């Protein structure tokens, strides 16, 4: 297993409240696989990634339990020095807003070359050639001319391409991308998604892709994890999740998607709102919004139910029906 987080619990302690951001989350990404983590705002997607990379702000965050296994090794046991050999090198990271991760006062060349030189002993001319090749790989036109540009001189889509080039600079085994196209126009998003597909074929790397857009998930995922309020609600192969969703939350999300065929009919909608992680309901965290709720849902935390073929859903009520 390339990357596997097991029963991860991360809480935030602030203002005398405890926010249970991750309440026992397990997911994994195998070699060469694209895994999507999907869920609404605040469900814990980013916190899980920050924990994997050991960049969770502590305090207020605290890891209360669980493991992060990377090729069998628990990253939570490593010290910062050991972690630096993995972060950005064997596990690369791409964030939503490239402007915050690119340094505005350095040129594109400086930044990518630095990413190469930090991890490898090559001379500056070789680093430069590698840099140009990377920019070509991510589809930046006339890369030689772009080397001297500063981040603000590039469009949003080009900045995201540069981020991807930086992430690829040291041949990572896995790339974690947290909402990399959310801020981009659809046409640019389509280009970036194509780019990810191409790169994955060429490089055999794993991709952990975080998004709240179900269309994007359907387009690139091999497997999907649906998160809700700090737990995995459902997981499985992309076709299972979209064609036979087994969790009322997944079913509700898919049914709420608007499109022009549904015009004139009331859209399905999930009532209520996502719970605040400091005040999560007892029992099944989805129960106040669930159309299938029964008495036990209000008191008992639901177990994962196995539908076979790697398809699991945390809803015993539908399972037993």
């Amino acid at each position, binding site marked *: 297993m390339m990357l596997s987080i097991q029963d991860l619990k991360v809480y935030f302690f602030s203002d005398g409240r405890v926010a249970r951001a991750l309440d026992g989350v397990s997911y994994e990404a195998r070699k060469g696989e694209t895994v999507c983590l999907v869920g609404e705002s605040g469900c814990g997607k980013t916190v899980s990634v920050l924990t994997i990379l050991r960049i969770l702000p502590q305090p207020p965050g605290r890891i209360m339990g669980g493991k992060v296994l990377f090729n069998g090794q628990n990253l939570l046991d490593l010290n910062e020095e050991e972690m630096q050999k993995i972060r950005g090198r064997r596990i690369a990271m791409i964030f939503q807003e490239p402007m915050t991760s690119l340094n505005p006062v350095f040129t594109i060349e400086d930044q990518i070359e630095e990413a190469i030189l930090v991890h490898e002993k090559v001379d500056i001319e070789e680093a430069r050639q590698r840099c140009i090749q990377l920019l070509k790989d991510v589809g930046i036109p006339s890369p030689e001319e772009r080397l001297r540009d500063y981040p603000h001189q590039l469009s949003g889509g080009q900045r995201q391409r540069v981020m991807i080039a930086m992430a690829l600079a040291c041949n990572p085994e896995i790339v974690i991308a947290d909402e990399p196209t959310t801020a981009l126009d659809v046409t640019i998003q389509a280009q970036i998604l194509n780019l990810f597909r191409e790169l994955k074929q060429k490089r055999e790397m794993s991709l952990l892709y975080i998004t709240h857009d179900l269309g994007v998930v*359907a387009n690139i995922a091999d497997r999907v994890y649906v998160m809700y309020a700090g737990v995995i609600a459902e997981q499985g192969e992309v076709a299972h999740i979209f064609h036979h969703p087994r969790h009322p939350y997944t079913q509700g999300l898919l049914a709420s998607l608007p499109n022009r065929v549904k015009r004139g009919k009331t859209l399905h909608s999930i009532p209520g709102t996502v719970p605040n992680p400091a005040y999560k309901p007892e029992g099944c965290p989805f129960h106040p919004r669930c159309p299938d709720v029964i008495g036990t849902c209000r008191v008992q935390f639901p177990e994962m139910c196995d539908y076979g073929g790697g398809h699991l859903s945390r809803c015993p009520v539908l399972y037993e029906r």
Partner: protein
Amino acid sequence: MIEKNNSSDGPLLKVKGLRKHFPVRRGFLQRIKGWVKAVDGVDVDIFRGRTLGLVGESGCGKSTIGRLILKLLEPNEGKILYKGRDISGMTQNEVKPLRKEMQIIFQDPFGSLNPRMTVGQSIEEGLRTLGVKNHGERKVRVSQLLEMVGIAPEAADFYPHEFSGGQRQRIGIARALSVEPSLIVCDEPVSALDVSIQSQIINLLKELQNRLGLCYLFISHDLNVVGYMSDTVAVMYLGHIMEYAAADELYDHPLHPYTLALLSAVPSPDPDHRRAQPVLMGDVPSALNPPPGCKFQGRCPLVEDRCRRKEIEVYQVSPEHQVRCWKVA
């Protein structure tokens, strides 16, 4: 409370030849270095009880059209006929009585609600401009409006930061409705919301439209949302309307190469329809000093010499369908 508009024939709002160019100034003397042709000759009609959807990539001029219609900006050229009267030349004073008939809902309702006022006070402001002088009557109306958008009336005493994004959007809608408008410009009203909340707000907007006969200019970059909401759709690119058609017509028989590219870029929520999309290459260009001829020429797969030579006119291909491309018309 609010009377349903009777759907008479003419458009409630007719926009003709609308233009807004912003000067770009540079350097010490702040000399004009060029023009951003944000809106560059736009004609659209909006009918009572109907929704006109406006789609296009970032910076194509959608919000500018909304602001021109509401007279938050003055156009360089063109007419805005509201109920047959041209409001484009009117002074702010002349337009004041019409202010309450046209409202706006933003993507981020936080920006439009005063953080130091309770939700009730914000909504009451609108009622005051309507001329509701009696304090008790205003209170009752605030409760009614909040209930109408699905918020408990007790919420009137809370401040905006105490609500979630979806709730704030509901409050923004309540405030817009407080002055009994006929037209609401909805500028990306659900873009910042999660899927489950997005569908709640979409349903609310539709229900209010049916109940009150409201007319929407619905601005969004999400073609699925626009397809659900709109009766007619205008596809915009760098200040031009490239295609303008009844919604079903546009989605079933798109003609303009840009519309085709946009539609094919929307990822389908069905893994069986995964395609290596015929992706539109290149970036969204800037509206600064665009080249002569078709504005889409830089990214168009069908481009020819003729496209670069002169302005492309609008072709009426059927009563419900216009396209600004000579090749596909």
